[in-house]
């Protein structure tokens, strides 16, 4: 067939038939900032998983002869310790590598627990409303009134330090965001006629929520999950900075920053480098999250 037409051809049916997920991945590839975010996150994940293979030293191995060693590129630095050492002579690179495990696991699991609790409660409250909705929504309002960090400090003071306790303390309040999102989305979806059609066919409420409504709101959930993981990582770092996070012997970025703040003038790298580790991870997460939000925003989908 000769190519005569200059008018734009309609999209081939294959592309139009692509599932919404495939489309999201394709669009992500077309948004450089989101792609950069995804690559940064992937790098951090690889580092966290492969920490024992990548770290040149044990994160808790002290070498008091090599205290306050600057990074390799600075005057007085050595290639033995690429990012220098802290006041106890511990290798900073190894500690930052191991520290990613605390940050990522706390961020991931506190959000996963909140997602699970918040979505279940939000679905029930949104679909059935009534007394359940009134009670849970008031509890959520009550928790919302307390500043997050203050609440987490109280919770950690009661629970004591530890990764699991961090996850619990952060989840107690974090489910509210997911609860509110899902409750609102389900209230707006359930008045649509496709839900009424499902009711006409005699499908029970829980089946309608999971099989009919959830696929229509999952995109906004994905965006919220991504952005909240970044926030949780900052919360974890803040608690660790205040000494309320993990036990002192476990390397965590927040406590590393705290440890270096007395010597910030003379040994800037002890605080600054873990800070940069947090900065880039959260930046990557936010880049990905905001791109996902742009892709899935129905107002930007008008061309469909």
């Amino acid at each position, binding site marked *: 067939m000769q190519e005569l037409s200059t008018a734009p051809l309609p999209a081939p049916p294959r592309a*139009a*038939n692509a599932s*919404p997920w495939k489309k999201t991945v394709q669009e992500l590839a077309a948004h450089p900032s989101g792609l950069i975010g995804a690559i940064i996150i992937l790098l951090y994940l690889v580092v966290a998983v492969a920490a024992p293979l990548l770290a040149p030293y044990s994160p808790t191995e002290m070498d008091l002869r090599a205290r306050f060693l600057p990074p390799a590129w600075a005057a007085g630095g050595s290639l033995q310790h690429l990012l220098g050492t802290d006041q106890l002579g511990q290798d900073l690179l190894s500690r930052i590598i191991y520290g990613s495990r605390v940050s990522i696991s706390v961020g991931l699991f506190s959000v996963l627990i909140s997602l699970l609790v918040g979505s279940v409660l939000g679905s029930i409250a949104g679909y059935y409303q009534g007394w359940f909705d009134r009670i849970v929504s008031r509890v959520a309002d009550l928790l919302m009134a307390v500043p997050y960090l203050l609440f987490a400090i109280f919770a950690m003071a009661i629970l004591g330090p530890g990764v699991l306790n961090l996850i619990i303390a952060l989840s107690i309040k974090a489910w509210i965001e997911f609860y509110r999102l899902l409750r609102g989305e389900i209230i707006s979806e359930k008045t*649509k*006629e*496709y839900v*009424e*059609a*499902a*009711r*006409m*066919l*005699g*499908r029970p409420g829980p089946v309608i929520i999971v099989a*009919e409504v959830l*696929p*229509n709101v999952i995109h906004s959930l994905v965006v919220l999950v991504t952005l909240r993981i970044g926030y949780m990582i900052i919360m974890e770092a803040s608690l660790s900075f205040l000494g309320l996070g993990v036990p002192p012997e476990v390397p965590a970025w927040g406590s590393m920053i705290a440890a270096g703040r007395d010597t910030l003038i003379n040994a800037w790298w002890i605080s600054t480098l873990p800070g940069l580790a947090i900065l880039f991870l959260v930046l990557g997460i936010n880049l990905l999250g905001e791109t996902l939000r742009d892709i899935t925003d129905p107002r930007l989908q008008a061309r*469909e």
Partner: protein
Amino acid sequence: MRAGNLLEVNGLKKYFPVQRSLASRLFGQRPGWLKAVDGVDLFIREGETLGLVGESGSGKSTLGRTVVGLYEATAGEVRFEGRPVKELSPQERKSFRQKVQMIFQNPYSSLNPRKTVRQILDVPLRMRGVPGPERPSEMEELLERVGLSRWHLNQYPHQLSGGQRQRIGIARALAVHPRFIVADEPVSALDVSVQAQIINLLMDLQEQFRLTYLFIAHDINVVHHISNRIAVMYLGRVVEIAGSEELLTAPRHPYTKALISAIPEISKIRRRERILLEGTIPSPLNPPPGCCFQTRCPEKKDPVCTQIVPTLKDVGGDHFVACHLY
């Protein structure tokens, strides 16, 4: 209940609670009620189409949704096949669900945007107990019945036109083998040319499957074409029911007269005198006392119309009017 009636509605009411602000509640105002359906009696004979017309806000959609059980009635009863729906056992309710289906107004929101046509049609077939291996051939037959082909099975709703979507909605309702279908303005969201196709499809299907329809619309021309009888609703009440021809040629209720005089006509010879109604339909939050139409009626008689609620009266020839003039 008379023999031959598939569905009967007696004194049906559906009120929606209206939230008042905290301040007005503190000052002792009681929560309000929106009286969407306010005491409706009607019956539908087996195999017929009852058209239901009325302007927006007259409660016709609410009536349809209450009849099929999407809304719970505030008062009154719905009898299907001679039995009150409220008293059905869970098992019987399941079979009621399959005998009564609905076709929706908006073909864009009535299909789940995340599901393919195959997934949409799979649910009713499963509910009817069609075993998995037989479903593909059943789906193809259904699609053929509504004028589509199996080529559409793998498409998403956004890839279909409005008319095609409405056909899928009809196929979904048909898939459970219903006896009674409430069609809630099934064509008002479609182009005029497509409207005719869908109406003809509905009439063909009625013949093939001996269906009974409650056909809701605000366009009296559309309703006239498909209905055996027409009921006119105003402010939550049925003001007149008659055979389709009778209602158009000899309307009795002043509201029906005004409604019919407003039908646009091309012929210059048969131009009717137009009856123009003053004002708008009153709020169902605060309906007028007496006859619901008294605020706009050109033939209002004091004090009977402003004080006594008229009931449906038989004026002969299967014609019922709720008006003090008769």
